[in-house]
């Protein structure tokens, strides 16, 4: 693995469900060691992009390279956090057991997890403030707790490239903060993270780089260069206009109320 190679490089990637192309001629380069957000409207192919990189969905055309090598040789270098809703949380297993699944890849066939793996799993649970839940049934967790356990599993999996599918969907503020802290810690350790994200207001705060996706890549690179009104409009089309109107109204309202408050203070 050369340091110069991008963590992930896609060239001309085209993916279709049945006869409908979802991703069309996608070119994307994710440099090693960055925190990249993937944003775009519903149906833009964000989750599809992650699944195509993992080889869960077959691509019709294009090349996927992971740290400079074809994907098939690098499968174990990619970690994955699926959408929380993609699994049955009534499955009979405990929180610790679920996190231990992250160690299965390096254990290889036939071997069972031992004390070293258990210790790593417990540490990961501590890291996401879920240590006291280790022996709970996974069905007893709240949405935010489920997401933290998923993250602990990815932490244990310890892959240099981590793909996360909407980890912030439907979680509370505490969990969101824990997730952000952990993502930053992982990046400091030299990991690369590609995260599908929905909330445009937090993109600048959370990510170094952003990819705007709507069937194709509209723009990708540093947040300051790419997260512009022009490119966002191109990505979201008409729907963003409404969003912008709402934002403008909101900002006038808040500035009005601020000035009113200041006026009030001045009167005092």
């Amino acid at each position, binding site marked *: 693995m050369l340091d110069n190679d991008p963590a992930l490089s896609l060239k001309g990637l085209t993916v279709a469900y049945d006869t409908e192309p979802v991703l069309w001629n996608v070119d994307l380069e994710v440099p090693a060691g960055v925190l990249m957000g993937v944003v775009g409207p519903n149906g833009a192919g964000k989750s599809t992009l992650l699944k195509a990189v*993992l080889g869960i969905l077959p691509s019709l055309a294009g090349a996927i390279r992971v740290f400079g090598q074809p994907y098939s040789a690098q499968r174990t270098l990619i970690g994955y956090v699926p959408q929380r809703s*993609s699994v049955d949380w009534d*499955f*009979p*297993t405990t929180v610790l057991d679920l996190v231990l699944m992250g160690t*299965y*890849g390096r254990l290889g*066939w036939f071997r069972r*997890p031992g004390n070293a793996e258990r210790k790593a799993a417990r540490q990961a649970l501590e890291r996401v403030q879920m240590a006291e839940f280790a022996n709970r049934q996974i069905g007893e967790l709240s949405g935010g707790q489920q997401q933290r356990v998923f993250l602990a599993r990815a932490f244990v999996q310890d892959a240099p490239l981590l*793909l996360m599918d909407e980890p912030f969907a439907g979680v509370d503020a505490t969990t969101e903060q824990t997730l952000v802290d952990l993502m930053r810690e992982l990046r400091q350790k030299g990991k690369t993270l590609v995260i599908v994200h929905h909330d445009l207001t937090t993109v600048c705060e959370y990510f170094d780089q952003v990819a705007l996706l709507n069937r194709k890549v509209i723009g990708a690179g540093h947040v300051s260069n790419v997260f512009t009104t022009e490119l966002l409009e191109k990505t979201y089309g008409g729907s963003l206009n409404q969003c912008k109107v709402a934002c403008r109204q909101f900002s006038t309202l808040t500035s009005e109320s601020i000035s009113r408050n200041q006026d009030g203070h001045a009167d005092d």
Partner: protein
Amino acid sequence: MLMIELLTDYTFRTVLLGTAMIGAVSGALGCFAYLRRQSLIGDVVSHSSLFGVMLFFLASYWLTGQGSKSLVVLIPGAICAGTAALLLTRTVVQRTRLKQDSSLGVMLAIFFGAGIVLLRWVQRVDPPIPGRRGLEDYLFGMAAAMTQDDLWMIGILGFLAILVMLLLWKELKVYTFDPLFSHSLGYRTAKLDTLLVMILVVGIVIGIQSVGVVLMIALLITPASAARQWTRRLGTMVILASLTGAVCGLVGSVISATYSHVPTGPVIVLASTLIFVVSLMLAPGRGIVSRMLHRSKLMSTIRQPNAGGDLP
């Protein structure tokens, strides 16, 4: 026959051992079908296997002049027909806009229908095919028909299926819970899926003679559903379901042998249903009674005069 006579009878001990093994194997494997919501797949394999049973029976007649009812001949037929039904379902789902459940329903109807047509024809054709008597027992099962050879066939296949399950325990577990994540661990998920379906097919076809093709699905799913109520761990669930299946198999064969002309399948189904209902009612935590108690306790806390303070 009296119970004592039954237990000392050599033939009957074969039957007891056989049905207990069938129950234990299909109970254990059924947990995976239950957790993957694949009960319908199991039912398609079981019903479709009748077609394979009839084909292989006829083939043995054409080859030897005597139709064979040995499981050594008929189980391979059942495996072929069950697998063919599943492969056709997959092709239909991939090539057409039909959804999985409707394609499965269609395949079940086609294969089971063809099986019934062949069965009726074999029963009525003149001159009669030697060995045809008792073929109709494959519908609802007749454990007493089990021979020593059948027992060996059931034992070897069941042992192999359980061995695969134990060796690939953690792979099958993570694949069943989270197939997308197991893919990212580097597992060949398509192969794991095929393997899991294959051991499920084995877990079903070993029961076609004793339990019958119509009701075999009950011995696969009901013990798993009952076991799920009592535990929060997959390992415990598999052991409990396996024990439940074995007990149901034993009860079924004893009752069906004691009262002659009672088919084994329905008795086994009744026994497993009883255990299932008791589990639904009485299991701690998930059971209906336990949840009712919990709720009434909560209600009485709420009705106390100083309610509205801290969470109970």
